[in-house]
């Protein structure tokens, strides 16, 4: 005898496991008083140069550290280590994005207390990282002037999942006839109200303003943590 199938209600998030780990990481960051920031962008948008510059500038006054995700090689960790900040490479193998478990494993032996900023550089990819919460306080999406002003319209999901947009390689803007207004309009269309910075890791343009923002964010998160 074949019986009727039985319908059961489930209502469970598919990424529940990732979300639980991400929540635990967020709590760990909050307790340690560290501001965790992740960076997402397409490959070649200047994430590593931007991060190296940021780490170097912050290192003078703050305790900073970084995790950097790539499919292969430790090249980026070696580049970032020039900033003198502790850096750890996460090699994902064939995986096209970071997951909360990878961040947790990478931080396993780290004492986060005493750290002020932790940066998590995701794998260069504008699609897959958007679905995975890493426990970060803020997610930055980078867009270089050489990529085309319509990138946000082509990849709306990841731009929408981010908190702050950073336009990079501003020193090349004139050479590539970058239309800054159009780029900003497109960012606002997919993520209304998003804060936008324009920087050049090469000339340092825009970096002081960006660092002020980071410092303010840290103070803000510390004051909420203290409550």
């Amino acid at each position: 005898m074949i019986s009727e199938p039985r319908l059961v209600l489930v209502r469970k998030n598919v990424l529940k496991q990732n979300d639980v780990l991400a929540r635990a990481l967020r709590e760990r960051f909050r307790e340690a008083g560290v501001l965790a920031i992740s960076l997402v962008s397409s490959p070649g948008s200047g994430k590593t140069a931007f991060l190296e510059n940021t780490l170097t500038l912050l290192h003078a006054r703050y305790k900073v550290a970084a995790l950097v995700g790539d499919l292969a090689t430790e090249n980026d960790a070696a580049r970032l280590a020039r900033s003198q900040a502790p850096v750890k490479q996460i090699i994902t193998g064939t995986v096209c994005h970071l997951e909360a478990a990878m961040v947790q494993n990478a931080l396993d032996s780290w004492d986060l207390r005493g750290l002020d900023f932790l940066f998590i550089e995701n794998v260069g990819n504008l699609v897959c990282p958007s679905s995975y919460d890493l426990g970060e306080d803020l997610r930055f999406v980078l867009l270089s002037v050489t990529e085309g002003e319509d990138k946000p319209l082509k990849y709306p999901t990841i731009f929408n999942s981010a908190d702050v947009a950073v336009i990079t390689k501003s020193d090349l803007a004139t050479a590539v006839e970058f239309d800054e207004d159009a780029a900003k309009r497109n960012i606002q269309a997919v993520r209304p109200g998003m804060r936008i910075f324009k920087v050049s890791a090469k000339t340092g343009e825009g970096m002081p303003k960006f660092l002020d923002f980071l410092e303010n964010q840290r103070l803000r998160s510390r004051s909420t943590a203290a409550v």
Partner: protein
Amino acid sequence: MHELSIAMSIVDLACEEAESHGAPGVDVVYLKLGLLSGVAKEALLFSYEIACQQTPLEGSKLLIEEVPILVDCPVCMDRRSVQSLQSLCCVQCGSPTPEILQGRELMVTAMELRQ
């Protein structure tokens, strides 16, 4: 292409659920998929079949309900849909709508279990 790893998470979740109900297999998995979830429906369906192989879900169907984006419009002061994924503005009054109420779902809502 992260849909394969998403599909494997669905299969893991569904296997656990079937086991907890003492069911030998699964016929259908119902999934809510938000337009802002970052997961592509076609790629997910393709990956699902592969992820089901040699599991109690082999031969099961994944039924996807796509969930549209709903926002809280600050001008209309009401729940509204948006113009498009490329223009997160109230479909009625055109105001920018940063507050998203619905559209990020990636959730198994129900399953049909074999008895």
